[in-house]
């Protein structure tokens, strides 16, 4: 009697399942790497917008610094209706001659908005 030897259906299925788990893991890692890269570059842009705006704000007369509402800006920090970044400025008096200046830049899928804080000396009372 001739004995048919070969893989059983079960063993083939197990092999396929194992292979697909492996492939999924690799694909998942690649996806995560791409997502992390995108997030990192968006974060870099958000940081440069925040720094640029903070520099601009520092150039203003500290006496006139006040809180500003959210503004939609593009990747260069220019106000734009199609920009994906949201920039806002919060100014609080921390002492008689000192203001805390907080620039936040929010962007889609941010874990937390990019936030830069500095203190501005208002000057001696007139």
């Amino acid at each position, binding site marked *: 009697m001739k004995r048919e030897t070969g893989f059983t259906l079960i063993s083939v299925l197990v092999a396929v399942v194992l292979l697909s788990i492996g492939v999924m893991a690799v694909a998942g890692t690649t996806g995560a790497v791409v997502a992390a890269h995108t997030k990192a570059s968006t974060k870099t842009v958000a940081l440069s917008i925040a720094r640029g705006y903070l520099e*601009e704000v520092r150039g203003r007369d500290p006496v006139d610094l006040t809180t500003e509402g959210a503004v939609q800006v593009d990747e*260069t920090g220019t106000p734009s209706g199609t920009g994906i970044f949201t920039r806002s400025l919060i100014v609080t008096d921390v002492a008689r001659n000192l203001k805390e200046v907080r620039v936040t830049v929010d962007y889609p899928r941010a874990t937390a908005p990019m936030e830069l804080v500095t203190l501005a000396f208002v000057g001696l009372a007139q």
Partner: protein
Amino acid sequence: MTTGRSDRRGFTLIELLISMVVGLVVLGASLAFATTTFRTIQGNQLRGDVQKAARFIGMSLERDLQSTGVGLASTPSFGSLAVWGDTIVILGVAYEPTESPPNDLKPPPGASNPLAPGGTCGANCLDLVYPGMTFDLAAGDVARLQVNDERRLIQVQGVTSGGGNAIVELTGATSLLNYQAGFSGGLLLDRFSTFVQKLSTVVYWVEDGKLMRAQGLRSDGSLDGTVMAYGVQEWTVTVTFRDGDQANRINPADTDFTNDFDDVVGLRVHAVLAADRPVQHVAGGSLFTRTYDWRFSPRNLMYERNRL
């Protein structure tokens, strides 16, 4: 019907074909995956290179602008920060490692004031006294010549110094870095109020798509530049004035007194940087570019302005 024959059974044709097809599918899939990964890496590298160049420019500018106006407050007609076209000029008193002192004029005997046109030891020559142990100006250096409130730039051609006195020969340049230079325009030296002080100069400009930076001048007065970045497609420099206005030039000569050198509080650079080569799968095969917008508020300009 020998049993030995069936023992040496090989793969059937069908088995071989199926395994080859499966093998091909797997090979094709992994090849496609590898290609995609390669393209992604290539694209990331290209973007990363542009980003790296941009960060280098931003940091260099920020670093250099911090020294704007160190020991040198701007006047309406002479600023520690000047721009024209794509050029940025940053001036400050040199710190090597301490602040370069002002060296007073050693006036010739006599009583006439102001002095006769020209220098004190020749047409382009100054007799100076220096306060320290050594005279800190050497050939090629750029310095400011201040006569009362009038400021000029000068470039040193040669120095003979000793015993607290220095004889400084100037190059005959009548214009340096867009400022009036030397004794041009009939400048008369003041017996009591003339001094020379060494300056540090940093100049940025764009030349054939390259961002150049020069620290100091060559002995013929030209800029001794090194390349900071390639692929600069656009480079627009704007200054911000005290009242919030922005302009691409500073104009002390007109009747507007809010756009002079001492009104400058900030600098803005708008740039478009391009990758060094086009890549087929990035930016649709054309050259990848990215726009940057840097803003700087040099601390000394701000402190100068907010001086109370």
